[in-house]
């Protein structure tokens, strides 16, 4: 998925040229509109994303259970899923959740974890800029990893369905919110969590996320650096700041060792 992203922004010469003139509105008007925004595009995106959404729903159930264990009500968990729409950031947030809520840490970590969306949104620019601002900026609200990848595949294969991102995103959103409610409701009926190994669920979720994020041996150095800083930071830093410290250590290592 990440390599996809790079190809899209780098390999298309016309895209790069257009990007150099972002404000040339008159030039844009001259260009033929090639991307449409139609009801059938929304429907097509929705239908094609349903199988992927079923997988997302499994994740959503887990998030709902964890949110409930962290002390969020069903309504609060559902509200988070409906407005944040970012799986990993939400799971991390409920991991950090405490009384009182460490607001700066929760919001800051969500922002840093989600910084990758900036690149994903940028990769969609060549198509989304043919839409009205409301259509484009409305659609990206529903952008998640899964439907972003699906939409990139669709548009790069020559499709003109600019509403595909919105349609596929609506499918993700519906399943994500619905499964969150299911998980949070079910979580409340479970008594002693450790009896069923539920205290281990969070670790299991993050392990599964780590496997899906693993991009090969090139990740080894930044991940090892992050791990080391986090384990040391857990001893030395207050609260859960070691998580952010480890993440930033991984970023710095990767930037420092970069060779073009």
């Amino acid at each position, binding site marked *: 998925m*990440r390599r996809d992203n790079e190809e899209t922004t780098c390999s298309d010469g016309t895209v790069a040229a257009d990007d150099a003139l*972002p404000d040339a509105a008159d030039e844009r008007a001259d260009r033929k509109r090639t991307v449409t925004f139609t009801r059938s595009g929304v429907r097509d995106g929705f239908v094609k994303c349903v199988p992927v959404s079923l*997988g997302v729903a499994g*994740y959503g159930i*887990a998030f709902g259970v964890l949110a409930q264990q962290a002390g*969020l*009500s069903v309504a*609060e968990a559902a*509200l*988070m899923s409906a*407005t944040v*729409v970012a799986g*990993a950031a*939400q799971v*991390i947030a409920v991991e950090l959740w405490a009384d009182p*809520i460490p*607001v700066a840490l929760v*919001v800051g970590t969500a*922002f*840093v*974890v*989600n910084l990758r*969306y*900036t*690149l994903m*949104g940028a990769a*969609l*620019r060549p198509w*989304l800029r043919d839409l009205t601002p409301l259509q484009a*900026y409305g659609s*990206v609200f529903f*952008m998640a990893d899964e439907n972003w990848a699906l939409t990139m595949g669709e548009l790069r294969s020559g499709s003109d369905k600019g509403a595909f991102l919105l349609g596929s995103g609506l499918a993700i959103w519906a399943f994500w919110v619905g499964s969150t409610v299911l998980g949070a409701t079910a979580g409340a009926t479970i008594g002693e969590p450790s009896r069923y*190994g*539920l205290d*281990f*669920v969070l*670790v*299991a979720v993050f*392990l*599964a996320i*780590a*496997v899906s*994020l*693993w991009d090969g041996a090139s990740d080894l150095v*930044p*991940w090892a*650096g992050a791990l080391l800083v*986090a*384990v040391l930071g*857990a001893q030395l830093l207050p609260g859960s700041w*070691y998580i*952010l410290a*480890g*993440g930033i250590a*991984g*970023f710095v290592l*990767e*930037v420092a060792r*970069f060779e*073009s």
Partner: protein
Amino acid sequence: MSPDISLTPVVVGVVAAMALATYVTKAGGLWLLGRIDVSERVETGLEVLPGAIVVSILGPELVEGGPAEWGAAALVLVVAWKTESVLLAIVVGAGAVVAFRGVL
């Protein structure tokens, strides 16, 4: 028991701030990256961030665990790797940790 549908103002505020921070990242690429240049160097750094953060959560968590947690964690890795199913990995992990805690 009926589901808890209460909303605490503080929680709603934190959720709203998270939603805003997340939306800024999603819309930011569309808006900003046409206006400034992000070097390839920074791009690869940003790509590595989510994984680095997930590892940072897991590290201390597993250090604090014992053989039962480590064994279950290894099993979760294998299942997630082979099946790519988060739900299956969780179910296997939760089952394994209970079993291992009983034995180890």
